[in-house]
């Protein structure tokens, strides 16, 4: 349910959300304190807040740091509503700080070096390298499992280290990575991007229309995810289920050849310069016909260019010769440092957050999917009821993607420190870009990068982490 105690300064875009809240309020008369939110064009609005615990000194303090969520409304809800309510119920003052997603590693390293910092630290990818600095999160996993059943396979493989038998993080959410495509443009070509073959077939025509396909090959997150997923669809995996590097394989070579062909026939050279925002901007500007991205594209389009938003739809990742295998776009992982001051409450906070994940799911506009699938009831129905989407059931496919087509980075193995380092050095986009630009042959690239990644893995193996 959209939380009735929304503490909100309403902007026009959020008017719709407020309407939903009002409707729900009328339905649930008598629950909680009514929120009066007057909407106005950009005017600052006065909002009656959550129940205030006047003046009483709270016994404990809990300090959290996390990224500035792409959906500002989520941060507003989390900071002003959720933690205040939880804090009141647990006699704790909860302080939430925000940092840019790119600065998370630097701040994490600083806190470890300082041996002092926040109780809960949020990473947007499994922080395998920090395993020695954090507690074993097993307790929290067990607590949630008792109430919500088994942890999702994705979250398990992302936060568990089979060699040390330790949960080095607690994942509360992940974000599925759908394919976004323009129904009108693909309609003109006459096929749908349900398989990579189709994509390659349609690409030259789309490019000729001035609407190229967009799979980034740059040093950034979107490229990393899209290319790794593409590779898996062709049978190329970085490691096997025993966490041994198997990059140099036929599947990888096929994927490289395919990507090169796709670039030459259907993409423009901008993909080598992309930032995480670039595919969003290109699609919202009407240029791209196809992109792999979380729903930030559609959500932005809904705000900036609603006509265009109606023409963008979502599908699971196209299928390749090895089937349909996708990756999460980002993975929310909280860690509790060994030197955290308030470990008990930190654990309780995480357990409580995940057990009732509905508020987070809705307030993030379906960006955050729960790592325990049972933590949000009736996901499909909620997705269907999105107030803004046209067609209304646009986001329904997210449920299917989340359930069937979202794997962890490093699948079929676990997300370990070797994978993490390779990921942070953008070696996969580098490999694809070099082949696409003709600087290496697919054979040479697969061999070279296999060797580089093996060296990285060996280093971490020697440290006992892989």
């Amino acid at each position: 349910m959209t939380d009735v105690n929304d503490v909100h300064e309403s902007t026009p875009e959020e008017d719709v959300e407020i309407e939903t809240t009002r409707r729900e309020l009328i339905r649930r008369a008598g629950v909680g304190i009514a929120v009066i939110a007057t909407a106005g064009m950009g005017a600052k609005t006065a909002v009656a807040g959550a129940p205030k615990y006047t003046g009483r000194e709270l016994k404990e303090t809990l300090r959290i740091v996390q990224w500035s969520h792409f959906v500002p409304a989520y941060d507003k809800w989390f900071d002003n509503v959720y933690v205040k309510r939880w804090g009141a119920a647990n006699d704790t003052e909860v302080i939430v700080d925000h940092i840019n997603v790119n600065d998370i590693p630097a701040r994490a390293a600083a806190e470890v070096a300082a041996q002092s910092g926040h109780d809960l630290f949020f990473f947007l990818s499994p922080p395998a390298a920090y395993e020695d600095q954090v507690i074993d999160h097993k307790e929290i996993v067990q607590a949630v499992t008792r109430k919500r059943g088994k942890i999702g396979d994705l979250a398990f493989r992302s936060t568990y280290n089979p060699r040390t038998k330790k949960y080095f993080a607690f994942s509360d959410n992940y974000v599925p990575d759908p394919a976004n495509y323009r129904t009108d443009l693909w309609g003109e070509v006459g096929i749908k991007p349900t398989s990579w073959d189709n994509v390659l077939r349609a690409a030259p025509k789309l490019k000729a229309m001035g609407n190229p396909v967009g799979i980034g090959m740059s040093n950034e997150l979107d490229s990393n995810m899209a290319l790794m997923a593409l590779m898996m669809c062709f049978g190329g995996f970085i490691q096997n289920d025993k966490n041994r590097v198997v990059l140099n394989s036929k599947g990888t070579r096929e994927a490289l050849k395919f990507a090169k062909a796709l670039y030459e026939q259907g993409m423009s050279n901008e993909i080598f310069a992309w930032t995480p925002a670039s595919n969003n901007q290109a699609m919202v500007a009407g240029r791209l016909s196809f992109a792999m991205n979380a729903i930030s594209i559609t959500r932005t389009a809904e705000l900036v260019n609603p006509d265009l938003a109606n023409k963008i739809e979502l599908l699971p990742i196209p299928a390749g010769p090895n089937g349909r295998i996708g990756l999460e776009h980002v993975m929310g992982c909280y860690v509790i440092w060994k030197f955290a001051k308030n470990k008990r409450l930190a654990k309780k906070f995480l357990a409580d957050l995940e057990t009732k994940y509905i508020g987070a799911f809705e307030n993030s506009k379906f960006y955050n999917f729960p790592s325990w699938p049972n933590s949000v009831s009736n996901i499909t129905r909620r997705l269907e009821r999105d107030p803004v989407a046209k067609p209304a059931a646009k986001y329904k496919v997210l449920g299917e993607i989340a359930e069937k087509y979202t794997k962890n980075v490093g699948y079929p193995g676990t997300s370990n420190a070797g994978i993490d380092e390779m990921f942070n050095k953008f070696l996969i986009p580098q490999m694809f870009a070099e082949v696409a630009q003709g600087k290496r042959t697919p054979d040479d690239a697969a061999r070279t990068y296999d060797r580089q990644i093996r060296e990285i893995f060996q280093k971490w193996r020697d440290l006992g982490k892989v």
Partner: protein
Amino acid sequence: MPTRRRRESVLTYAVVGPFALVLAFPFYWMLWTALKTDGDLYNTENNPFGFAQGSPTLDNVRFLFEQTDYLRWLGNTALVGAVVVLITLAIALPAGYALARLSGRWGQSLGVGIFLVYLVPPTLLFLPLSRLIAELGLQDSLWALVLVYPSFTIPFATWLLMGFFKTIPRELEDAALVDGASRIRSLLHVVFPISLPGILTVVIFSFSLCVNEFVYALAFITQSSSKTISTGIYTELIRGDVFFWGALMAATLIPSIPLALLYNTFLDRFIAGFTGGAFR
């Protein structure tokens, strides 16, 4: 000769003009972007130098001031800069003087040594420093920056002041000494006033170094109310894969213009001091 002067001034404009154009063009572009609505900005059809679809608008600026702690960050940056400048002067002035006058041969090498400090990138120094900051209980406090920033302003300031003090003829000081003043007195009453241009330069450069600093501010402070503009902007106007370009550009312009005005004003003064001062 009038023609010669005219030729000179044409040459001047021909040279300085293009430089000024190229250097200032990004800011001109930032101004334009800051005044555009998102609908106008993200449309490749639109002329970027024109306005369409609701532009020009002050929405971006309004967003900056109302929905973020921007004003606070500006204040924090100014405060940190000012305090660090004072600390720098307090430590670098005597050091620069000593190196220029009093230290003989080993003073030279010490001067070089101070300079070598700059060669280590802060990209890794911030880790051990984080430990120090935490031990002192300064994590998430602006005082952490006040403590650490002088570590890169002092070497530069000392170096600069050493240079300036060297250009002040010894005769001036010696004259005062002969007249019976102690060295300290001569320092205060004779040397420092003449080196005012140098001091001004140190102020400008140190302040500029502080405002530009990024890595330490990032590592030491996460609380929004204690952020400086560099980190605050980065955190709240770049959310995941969405850049709030309009607000970003506005945020860059707002401190830059007053700072440039300030620097420009001081520049006149210290050049005047140079040519006028010590060679009366």
